[in-house]
């Protein structure tokens, strides 16, 4: 079998360093909440709907208490008080927080025990919703099993959720295992989640709870038609990271793009905000059994894929460390990487093989996500199709778990039906023709591929030593990842980060943290 040399001591060292980095950040996370987290709590407790202007109720309520400087106690605290004082439901309580003339009077509050008791049944219900969605997923997977690895992942992005549903079915028909509905451009920068089904979106379709439900129905239909489980994917990233995670958990999505640092680097979202949000989102994800897809592939679209390959590996260790702290199992960590080396570079294919094999061996239990070329894609769609074929050859040879299929029209437009069809067909050919290639070949012990793998791991150790010394905050400020520099208080959403009061209340997070 083809393997590259991996020094387990160095891997162990990388994990220690990444843990050190994550522990430092975890101390910050534990002392803070965000407006996004509080909205998530409110949704989970049972608040839904939007104001007449279309602003979600959870935003109206949370923003009101944030502006009054009261959110450091946690929104659950106020909901609990209103419940104790006689509100019939969380919905009614949330509406009171949002629209009542006066803010909740906190002069003579019920005892913390009384508040906790009033909230407890709603917390239990929230967890039950996650658990039953998870059981439903497992039940359907027993009925129709998923296809073999690498699972073939395609994107639909029409802007209209009903067209997306049609395209999702067409993709499943053509052999896709995973369908992702890409989000409308810049949704990650919206500080609220739109409500209801949507039919207009540029560059993609809005992620809303109703849209999740529509695609779930379509993929379930397709799964039963084709006798193959179809996984549904969306994006838990941006300013509503944890809210999306909640919606995805209860609407039974199978995968979420979710990265501890992506928003900071590529969406200029404040790092304090992102670290807190990623933690809470991953607590929900851990409970729901969803598989995360991390975004290290993006590093190579801004930085050079040969020079900066080790930053991908280093970031994977960090993402793993953060995920472990949020209760995820390795089997839920779809660490990402990509085929982004300049195709005209001599031996570029060998370097790609080396990196893919290295990542496969280091993260052996993780459902590794293999991303296609994008940066060097060109308008010559015929060449692009060949480029993608070599990418798939690496995917099958190194036994990647999830492969986002390349599209020959990558440089032209969002994928059309024909593009996906031809991509699935070509990938099926490569997977079939080279099914056992990885089992049959061996890489020369001191050859180019082996040496490349050794170098990348060495460089990752060195980078992690540096990051552990400087701390993640300063490392990001210096451009350690993706050549992008961000400051601790800069970026979007910083205003929504709140230091917790010593009697901060969040029974949902407490329950998730206490969960086995």
């Amino acid at each position: 079998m083809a393997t590259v040399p991996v020094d387990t001591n160095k891997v162990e060292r990388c994990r220690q360093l990444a843990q050190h980095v994550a522990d430092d950040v975890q101390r910050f996370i534990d002392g803070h909440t965000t407006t996004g987290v509080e909205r998530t709590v409110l949704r989970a407790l049972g608040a839904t709907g939007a104001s007449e202007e279309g602003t979600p109720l959870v935003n109206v309520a949370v923003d009101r208490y944030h502006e009054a400087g009261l959110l450091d106690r946690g929104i659950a605290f106020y909901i609990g008080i209103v419940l104790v004082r006689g509100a019939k439901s969380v919905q009614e309580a949330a509406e009171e927080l949002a629209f009542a003339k006066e803010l909740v009077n906190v002069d003579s509050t019920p005892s913390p025990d009384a508040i906790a008791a009033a909230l407890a049944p709603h917390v239990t219900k929230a967890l039950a919703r996650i658990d039953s969605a998870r059981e439903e997923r497992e039940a359907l997977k027993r009925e129709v099993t998923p296809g073999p690895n690498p699972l073939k992942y395609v994107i639909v992005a029409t802007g209209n959720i009903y067209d997306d549903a049609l395209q999702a079915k067409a993709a499943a028909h053509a052999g896709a295992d995973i369908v992702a509905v890409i989000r409308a451009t810049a949704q990650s920068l919206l500080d609220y989640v739109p409500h209801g089904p949507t039919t207009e979106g540029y560059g993609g379709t809005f992620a809303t709870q109703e849209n999740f439900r529509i695609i779930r129905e379509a993929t379930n239909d397709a799964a039963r038609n084709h006798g193959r489980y179809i996984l549904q994917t969306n994006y838990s990233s941006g300013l509503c990271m944890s809210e999306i995670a909640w919606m995805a958990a209860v609407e039974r999505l199978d995968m979420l793009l979710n990265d501890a640092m992506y928003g900071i680097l590529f969406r200029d979202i404040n790092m304090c905000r992102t670290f807190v949000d990623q933690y809470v989102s991953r607590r929900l994800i851990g409970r729901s059994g969803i598989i995360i897809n991390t975004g290290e592939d993006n590093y190579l679209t801004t930085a050079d894929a040969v020079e900066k390959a080790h930053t991908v590996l280093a970031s994977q260790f960090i993402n793993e460390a953060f995920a472990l702290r949020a209760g995820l199992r390795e089997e839920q960590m779809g660490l990402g990487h990509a085929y982004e080396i300049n195709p005209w570079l001599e031996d570029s294919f060998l370097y790609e093989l080396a990196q893919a094999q290295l990542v496969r061996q280091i993260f052996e239990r993780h459902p590794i996500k293999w991303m296609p070329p994008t940066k060097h894609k060109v308008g010559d769609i015929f060449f692009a199709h060949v480029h993608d074929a070599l990418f798939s050859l690496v995917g099958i040879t190194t036994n990647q778990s999830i492969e986002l299929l390349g599209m020959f029209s990558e440089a032209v437009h969002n994928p059309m039906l024909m593009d996906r069809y031809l991509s699935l067909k070509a990938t099926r050919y490569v997977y079939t023709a080279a099914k056992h290639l990885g089992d049959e070949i061996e890489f020369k012990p001191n050859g180019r591929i082996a040496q490349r793998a050794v170098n990348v791991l060495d460089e990752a150790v060195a980078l992690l030593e540096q990051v552990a010394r400087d701390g993640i905050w300063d490392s990001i400020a210096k451009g350690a990842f993706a050549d992008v520099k961000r400051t601790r208080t800069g970026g979007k959403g910083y205003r929504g980060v709140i230091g917790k009061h010593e009697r901060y209340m969040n029974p949902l997070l407490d329950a998730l943290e206490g969960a086995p």
Partner: protein
Amino acid sequence: MNPKQPIRAYGDRHGDGMIQLSFVLPIAPSPRAREAAKRFAEAHGLVDPLVATMEECAENYAFFVVYGSSKHSVDIGSIEVPEVSTASRTREEIEELIKKDIGRKLVVVGACTGSDAHTVGIDAILNYKGYAGDKGLESYKGFEAYNLGAQVENDQLAARARGLSADAILVSQVITQRNCHKDNSRALVDLIERQGWREQVLLLLGGPRIDHKLALELGFDAGFGPGTKPAEVASFIAERVRERTKARG
């Protein structure tokens, strides 16, 4: 008359008309060449064409890929295409039909006619090995198959088939340069008609550019396109011969 059913090319939304074209213009890449490619695409009915690539593919020749929305539509309501109607049968069912309803071996003579030297089609249908796991007519007990091979002239084929009292003649035409496949095939039908035994034989035409509609236009009884399996041809012959046998009492 069927109601109008115009359809357009489909990209990712109904009616978007999205297509791509690739072509070469005999001009070196330049901003002017790009504009020429755009206008060329517009002349083909593309609205707002996007030149996705322009590359020098030879000295003074530019290769283009152009995307755009085609304004054209086709009315599928007005299109009728005759298709070979024969029940799908397994080999065993065909053997049984011949044995029970006809009671004798069916004689089939096949050839690539004219200058055509490509026997891949006729071999696939007639030879024992067959095509895509489906064995050829030689393998059937109910058929006596004669594969005359390539570059057989029409008069030789007709003489041989008449001499063998063939039930069916299979003509394979792969080469389509300057429509020679049509002229050549039509000439065989004319010859057999002049000789006065057209009614006694089934004439089947096959090839990558052949379809049933074209074969009928050329005077054949059926046409078989790419991907046809031997059992489909065998089933058609057996069924038609049975009809004729019954009609003659």
